[in-house]
């Protein structure tokens, strides 16, 4: 066996690193699902439609542990709807719902940061709601929304580690299995930490780049 296998450390490192794909998958899904939910609910809330429902949803999803939410979706929801829910779907739903609650508040704050006069100006020019939101309001709201949103993205990247409890071979689970296999504890966990940091670091870099493109700097003095 000796000559054929790689250095076990490197082998394990690569094994844990490969979990990045799974972690990234869940992170992106949660972000997308959460953004769709969050944008929709934030606009509703801004227009004072269904405010009670929106606030109740946000309150519950932010006020209960994500692990509990994941467990409820994976184990309890199937009994309510009558058909089995695989791990991937359960994780996607739970993470999206949770992210949605936080993102609703982020976008809501962003919308409130836009001067009411902008809405008036749009009305005065006869600009219809869809165009108003898309071209005038949201681009201005992004400036306030973006930093908090990036924050949430980074938090999500780490929170997806919970899917390891359901067996998904993400970074966390791979680290746990490696720890058991080699009867060691610290090294696999440090490796996992490095992998998560790699991911969040890339997210931050990407975020900085996006921020330049999306958030117009109003304080620029030069033309």
């Amino acid at each position: 066996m000796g000559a054929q296998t790689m250095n076990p450390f490197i082998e394990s490192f690569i094994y844990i690193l490969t979990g990045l794909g799974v972690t990234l998958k869940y992170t992106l899904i949660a972000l997308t699902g959460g953004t769709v939910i969050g944008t929709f609910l934030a606009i509703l809330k801004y227009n004072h439609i269904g405010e009670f429902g929106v606030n109740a949803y946000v309150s519950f999803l932010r006020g209960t542990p994500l692990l509990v939410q994941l467990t409820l979706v994976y184990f309890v929801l199937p009994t309510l709807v009558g058909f089995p829910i695989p791990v991937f779907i359960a994780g996607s739903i739970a993470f999206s719902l949770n992210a949605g609650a936080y993102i609703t508040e982020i976008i809501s704050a962003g919308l409130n940061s836009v001067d009411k006069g902008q809405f008036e100006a749009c009305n005065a020019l006869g600009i219809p709601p869809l165009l108003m939101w898309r071209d005038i309001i949201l681009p201005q709201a992004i400036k306030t929304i973006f930093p908090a949103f990036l924050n949430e993205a980074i938090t999500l990247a780490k929170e997806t580690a919970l899917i390891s409890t359901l067996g998904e071979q993400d970074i966390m689970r791979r680290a746990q299995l490696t720890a058991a296999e080699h009867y060691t504890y610290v090294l696999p966990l440090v490796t996992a930490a490095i992998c998560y940091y790699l991911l969040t670091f890339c997210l931050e870099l990407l975020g900085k780049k996006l921020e330049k493109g999306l958030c117009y700097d109003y304080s620029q003095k030069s033309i």
Partner: protein
Amino acid sequence: MKNFYQKTYNALIIIILIFIFGCNAPDRNVDKKSILIVGLSAEYPPFEFQQQGKIIGFDIDLIQAVGQKLDKEIQIQDMSFHSLIASLHTGKIDVAISGMTITPERLKNVDFTQVYYQPSLAIVYLKNQPLDSNIFSHKKIGVQLGTTMEKWIKQQTKEQQNAEIISLDTNPPLIEKLKLKQIDYIVIETLQAVEFCKLNPSLAFQTVGTSDEGYGIALAKNSALKSEIDAALTALQADGTLEHIQEKWGLKQ
């Protein structure tokens, strides 16, 4: 502005594609009756653990042998130990084999087959802090939560008020605590003790006997599979397969 929305739209399409491809649709070709979905937590060598991407171990070989006897295909599902019982209840898995000790508390929620292995207990301690005659009094003792070892040590220290038992989910953190002298010793399965001491020269172990409890295969309450699997286990014992697997993994009974 248009460029931004274009990019967002493209990104969304990509994400939807990842969603579709990431979804592992179950294999519908095989009839459900001939599959046995087995849950385990691959964190407990040599019973179940992961090596080079594959999950192997004593429990895996045993359940494969059972599957052969029942003419069923085995599908392994790894998850955290906590999730096993919930998964049995909700029908996500048919059976769970994971070095799980048969305890009265667990029997309230699940059924078990007959015992297929009785673990041998050992105490792991620091070489420079050998065990004295009062191994239970004024000691901090580490043990894995929910195991036969935990039960044993709790029984042993019932009379002593001054023994502190620290139960954690898995053994590796207990080893770390021992090395840091935060606990005095650990009670674990002999096979694991052997491996841990090999890798940590500062540690030594001593066996203290065989547990009178044992590992069993867990099933949902009133499962129809119980009698079938019990029959299979009996057969495997009779024809020597069980012993063969035990030898393979270094388990002596």
